[in-house]
Structures are given as C-alpha cells and as structure tokens.
C-alpha cells in the first residue's frame, strides 16, 4: 500500500444556498519519498487538498489512508498526534509566532510533543546549524529576512522528523533567488527520504518535481510522472 492513498474524496463548502465543490471525486496515491508538485489555477482546490492531507480538514466523503491507517475516522486528539509526529507544514506566509525567538519557534513542535528540555536544546541547536541559522537563534521573526523566516519555518517543520512535508506556496512571498534557496532546502530533505508535496504556481519549481498533479475545479486533471533523472 502506498504511503498516502486518497479515494473518492469530496469536499463541499456551503456558502448560503450555493455549494462549492472544492474537491470532487479525487483519488490519488503517493509513495514514500516522492516529490510531488500540485499545480493549477487559483481556486482549483490545491490548498484544500493540502489541508486534507495534513489532517487540518475532513472530507465530506471518501477515504484517506496514511501509512496504511484510515485517518479520517480518528478522534481529534489522535489526528493531532499524527500531525505532530508524521507531518510537517510549511506555509506561504511563514506563520512564525512573533513574540518567540527563532530557536523557540523551531522548538514548538518538540514542546507540544512533551520532549524533555535537554534533548530539545540539542535538537534545536543541530537544526539551527543545519539550516545556517546559528547566528539568528535569539532573533525574533521581525528581525529576520523573508528567506531566513522560511528557513526557520522549514526547520520547525522537520524538527520532529516527519514522514511527509506539506508546503503551500513556500516561495510565494520570496524573491527569486531566496525562493530557489528554499526550494533546494526542501529538495535536500526529499533526497533524504521525506515525502515532499508542494503547492506552487511557479512552473520552474513545478518542473523540478518528478511528479505533477494538475488540478482544475476540484478535479485531478492530469497526473504527470517523469522518469527519475538518469
């Protein structure tokens, strides 16, 4: 069984009398370690799909198996646990807690998981080093550049060593070259075995992915796989 298996997913938003089918009859499976770009026009349901994959949202119909387990039927606390241990999020607008330092932001998932301060310290220090943020450890987000902020966010997303990283337009708020740095960072993580699913409007970034899901009106229009580069 694939790491991620979606079948017959429906997601309907009710706005007054009208219904919006954000996702419709969506079935897709993703293997461990894949690098997937989700692309498509605005409003096509990319973010909705990512939120479902990240267990932040529930489908109205269909099943979602993550690592062989049907996760749509889990209790909210069990879902929180899955998010905490198996999934890392990276957002377009970084979502750092403004009053906490870079190190404290990175430590948040460890704190939520109840990991002892000593181990937390060691892991955060290592992460700061890995992402070239040693000198920024005690800086608050408003003292960091956009690229640095997204690096803090990626460090935070990976500190729990998740199986899947979900990134919703991670380079959307960055200039071209910092965007490329962030893309490389994510690809390095993918190279180490983590499944990477990126929503992007950037054809260059999309082109780098080995698999592209093209969406339109909540449907999967195209599922393009490229042979692994020789």
């Amino acid at each position: 069984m694939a790491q991620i298996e979606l079948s017959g997913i429906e997601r309907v938003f009710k706005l007054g009398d009208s219904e919006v089918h954000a996702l419709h009859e969506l079935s897709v499976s993703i293997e461990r370690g894949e690098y997937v770009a989700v692309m498509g026009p605005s409003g096509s349901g990319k973010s909705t799909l990512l939120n479902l994959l990240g267990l932040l949202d529930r489908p109205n119909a269909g099943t979602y198996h993550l690592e062989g387990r049907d996760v749509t039927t889990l209790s909210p606390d069990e879902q929180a646990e899955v998010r905490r241990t198996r999934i890392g999020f990276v957002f377009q607008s970084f979502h750092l807690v403004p009053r906490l330092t870079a190190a404290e932001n990175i430590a948040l998932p460890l704190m939520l998981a109840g990991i002892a301060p000593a181990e937390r310290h060691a892991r955060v220090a290592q992460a700061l080093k890995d992402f070239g943020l040693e000198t920024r450890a005690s800086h608050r987000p408003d003292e960091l550049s956009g690229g640095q902020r997204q690096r803090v966010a990626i460090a935070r997303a990976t500190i729990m060593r998740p199986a899947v990283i979900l990134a919703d337009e991670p380079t959307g708020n960055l200039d071209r070259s910092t965007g490329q740095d962030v893309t490389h960072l994510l690809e390095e993580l993918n190279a180490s075995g983590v499944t990477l699913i990126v929503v992007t409007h950037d054809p260059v970034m999309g082109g780098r992915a080995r698999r592209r899901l093209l969406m339109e009106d909540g449907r999967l229009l195209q599922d393009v796989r490229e042979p692994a580069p020789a």
Partner: protein
Amino acid sequence: MTPADTLRFATRAATGYPLRTALMVLAMSIGVAAVVVLTALGDGARRYVVNEFSALGSNLVIVLPGRTATGGLGLGNIITSTPRDLTVRDAEALLRAPLVTRMAPLSVGNSEIAWGGRLREAMVVGTSGDYVDIRAFRMAEGSFLPREDLGRASAVAVLGTKLRAEIFGNEPAIGRIVRVGDRRLRVIGVLDKTGQGLGMNTDELVFVPVATAQAMFNTNNLFRIIVEARSREAIGPAKQQLEDIMRLRREGELDVTLITQDAVLGTFDRILGALTMAVAGIAAISLAVAGILVMNVMLVAVTQRTAEIGLLKALGATGRNIRLAFLTEAALLSLAGALAGFALGHLGAWALRLAFPVLPAWPPDWAVFAGIGTALATGILFGVMPARRAARLDPVQALSRR
C-alpha cells in the same frame, strides 16, 4: 505538553503584550486592594469598639435607672425617663444576690479641683473601694478608696494619673489636701495609666467616696451601679437575681435597666461585623468587574492570536493544549493582579493605621484569602470561555488569517 512548558508558554504570551497585561493586573489589583483596605477599616472599627468595651472589665452587669423595652444598646438606654431614683440602699441590696461578688455604685458630676494656686475642671466620680478591682485598675501611688460603709463621706480623693501630673507636676501628691468643689479632701492614691474607656478618660478623673460625691452634688440618686458576677457563665442568672431584688424593692415593678457587657458588645460586634461584610461585598463586585475584564481581554487575545492558534494546531497541539495555555494565561494575569492588590491593600491599611493610630486597621485573614481567592476564581472562570473558543477554532480558517 508538560505543565512547566504550558506555564512558560503562557508567561511568554502574557509578557509579550506588556500594556495589555499591565492594565489587566491593575484592574484586578484595585479590586483586591479594595477588599483588603475596606475590610481592614471595618474590622479595625469593630476591634476598636470591642477593645474599648473589654477595657471595662469582665463579667459586668450595669444597672441604670429607668426601664427600656429592649436590652442591648438602643437609644432608649441612653435617654431614659427616670421614674424612681437609684440609691445607695439599692446598691447595697444588690450585693445580697448569691452570684454577685462585688458591686460599685457610681455617682458622677462636674466640678473643679484646686491646689497651690492651680485650678482645673474635673469630672468627679463617687464610688466604693471595690471599683478599682471591678475595673482591674492598678495604683501608681498610695491606695484606692477605703472599703467602708457606703454612707460615710470620708474626706479623701484618688486622682487619675494625668490629673495628678497637671495639678502637682513633679511634687509628691500623697497626703496633700486638695479642694474639690467646696470640700477639702486628702489625696490618698493615684491610679496608674489606664487609657481610654467608653469615652471617659479615667486618667483625668477624681474618685471620691460615693457619699462624699452625693453630698457635694446634693443628690441621693446614683448614675449607675456596676455589679460583678461570679463568672462569665453566671452573668445570665446573676442578672435574673438582680432583677428579682430590684422588683422586691419597688413593689413588684421593675424600673431599672440591666445591661450586660455581652449584650452591648454583641450588638456592636454584629453591627460592625455586618458592615465589614457589606463593605467586602461591595469590594467583591469590583473583583467581578475585573473578572469580566479578564474575559474581554482574553477574547481579544484569542482573536489577535487566531493565526497562532491555527499554527499550533497544525503543529499537532490538541484542543486541550490550547485550552490549558489560554486558561493558564488568564490565571497568571489574575494571580499577578491578586498579589499586586494584596501588596497595595496592605499599603493602604498601613496608611490608614498611620492616619488613625487608635484604629487597629488590619485586614482580617478571611478577607485577604477571600479577596485573592475571588480574584483567582473569577480570572479562571472568566478565562474558560475564551480558552474554549480558542481550542475550538477551525485550524484551516485560523491559518488563513494573517
């Protein structure tokens, strides 16, 4: 999430918005300080009155002429119609009650005292030798009035310590002849400092035998009779015996009022106790208002930090984690407010004691605990709703907010 981490996280959140936190703590502390200061004032007044009465001595029954319907201290006890005089013979008769140990008649009038060219207005109290024991006074010099037949008008006087100082200065007083009104009396004793008692400052009084006073003021009646019962428990039965004796002497009609110290004290104690409670209640309302403020501030905090809550959920926080974090923050704010208010209140009570040295303005323990407890309880209670709202936020919508 460990409790220590929850506490640290909530502390960072509280200190992350210093102005908001300062205002909250201020509101809460004013409420607690109000409870502490107002109860200190009320309880101080209660203790002041109780002390004043206790200074009278214990186990006392006071007999005064005239009859009022109710016991205790009503206006009627002070302004009484006097059908028949209370006499020295009545006083002697009261001593026959088995449960009575001592008795002192009191006859009071204003006069002047003079010695060696010095002249001073003074209140003269005619009484018996037992008065000094009933009131538990100590002698500074000499002895108190002799224990003799109440009809004897011996020409002797005992002075209060302040009066003695004013008349004699540093010169010896014992054995000197002073003029009191139209009489010449020999000073046989000086009382030790006694302090205030029921508005009469004993240190400024002249004590003379009751017959001497009555002759001086040309009267037969007594101001009151003070009777001492055998014990505290005997006060009730003794009062009954006294009433029986008086009835016998007045052809079955009781035209005197007997006040027990307990009744007077009890009345004052109740009135001032109730006052303290009422005042504490009013102050507690300000605490409730502070609690509502906590709720509003926390609701605003939830709205302000919507994106943060969404993020925490994305990172795997459970609803319980978030609820606890916000609840802890509310509790911290009210705890800080309560402690600040406690300090502020004690400062206020101290200022009160400085301004009114006679008033023992210490806040009672129950009020301090109740004040801090109410602050914490309201803070947490009113923190529950915002915390639950935070925990219930839909993470997707929360995250889409910047």
